């Protein structure tokens, strides 16, 4: 079946494995890692923050992406036009800019309007993470909305008709046939977008949220080591990505496709 079910003992896999081990040994012997113990606690916390951001924003973002995609694929104009506009604007401008405009743009308003500091919302307006979550969620929703639009439009029409013919309500057709078929179709892309989202999370460091990337930049600027902290970061992201990719593979393989 799938490649992951084949044995690790195949010769080329052993070669790949050996190369990997070689790189790790080289890095361990020839590079400086004495800083690691000092930062390990903070690194773990940072990974926690990164994961929390990733899961929260991709889950929320996906929830918005589905209606966004559906509205664009099959909605009436008064729904599809705003949905399309939202996706275009968000996808059309860099996330960093959005984050900035949200956090510092609003912040500069607060400076002129000090009364807001008395309101109940101030603890949230004051913290950085709500802005990060908002911006990341919108971004994921917009990109994924676009992917879902294509996926919804690609489901064979006949299968939807079959659902309708059995008296399924539009929602049931959607929930039981259209959505699962579309998601299955979008899974490879979705996996990629989620990894992209993982790599977008570091941007929140610019608005004072301390994720794993912020810790690593801290290490870099403290120690002035060029490659070591970045290699560690790469390793951490690789492991997170590996888990994501495997999870998506598993989902994909749940419905076998011929060919």
């Amino acid at each position, binding site marked *: 079946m799938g490649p992951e079910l084949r044995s690790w003992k195949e010769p080329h896999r052993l070669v790949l494995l050996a190369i990997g081990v070689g790189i790790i040994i080289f890095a361990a012997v020839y590079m400086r890692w004495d800083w690691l113990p000092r930062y390990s606690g903070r690194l773990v916390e940072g990974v926690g923050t990164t994961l929390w951001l990733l899961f929260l924003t991709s889950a929320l973002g996906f929830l918005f992406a589905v209606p966004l995609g559906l509205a664009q694929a099959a909605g009436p104009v008064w729904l599809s036009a705003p949905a399309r506009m939202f996706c275009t604007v968000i996808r059309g401008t860099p996330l960093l800019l959005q984050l900035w405009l949200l956090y*510092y743009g609003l*912040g*500069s308003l*607060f*400076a002129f309007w*000090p009364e807001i*500091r008395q309101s109940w919302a101030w603890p949230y307006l*004051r913290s*950085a993470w709500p802005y990060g979550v908002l911006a990341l969620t919108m971004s994921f929703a917009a990109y994924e909305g676009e992917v879902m639009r294509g996926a919804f439009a690609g489901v064979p029409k006949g299968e939807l008709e079959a659902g309708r013919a059995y008296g399924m309500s539009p929602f049931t057709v959607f929930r039981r046939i259209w959505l699962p078929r579309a998601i299955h179709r979008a899974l490879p892309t979705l996996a990629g977008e989620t990894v992209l989202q993982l790599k977008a999370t570091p941007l929140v*460091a*610019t*608005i*004072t949220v*301390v994720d794993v990337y*912020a810790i690593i*930049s*801290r290490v*870099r*600027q*403290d*120690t*002035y*080591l*060029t*490659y070591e902290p970045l290699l560690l970061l790469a390793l951490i992201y690789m492991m997170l990505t590996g888990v994501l990719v495997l999870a998506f593979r598993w989902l994909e393989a749940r419905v076998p496709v011929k060919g």
Partner: protein
Amino acid sequence: ASAETVRVGVAAEPYPPFTEPDASGNWTGWEIEFMNAVCAEAKLDCVVTPVAWDGIIPALTSNKIDAIIGSMSITEERMKTIDFSDKYYNTPSVIATAKDSGITPDAAGLADKIIGVQVSTIHQDYVTTHFGDAVAEIKEYQTQDEANQDLAAGRVDAIMADSLALDAFVKSDTCCEIVGAVEDDPAILGAGVGVGLRKGDDALREKFNTAIATIRENGTYAEFSKAYFDFDIYGK
């Protein structure tokens, strides 16, 4: 003439009044004038090479540039990777707050407050060491400018930074004021700012050291600094 060419890396992100580009792409600022003076003195043909702050050390170690003039403080940690010339400026660190906040620049005054600093600066180290237990939270900003903006917005109660940077800020923004300098701690606040050099590039370092000493003595340093500062930025 046949002077040796030295590629001097500056941070591509502006850091006024030390280094900033203008709209025609020319780099200006105090550090650029300093560079011109030093290079003229040492008979070096220096060219400005902007590199993002993130890549400036690798650029130096992989020979893409030969020196860094970017307000880089001389610290023990950095000396493990690169060399420094002698210091060429040093300014005190101060704390700024909203007007009439009543906060004093010490642990007692900052108790249970939120304080903002630029990430990976000597100020961050200082705040962590001296106020870490007292304050409610230390917020880390990528640039000093962002910390300043959040002080104005009221998201942080105080910020700590270089006196020069904050001086310019409180003059341009009416929201805030400098409440005073923190107590000195040479172990953290370091020995000032130096030219970053590749390890082992001793010949170049000597040239810079001699030139810095010469322009200090012959008055060139004071001359070009006048346009920027009304005090001696070289420090103690």
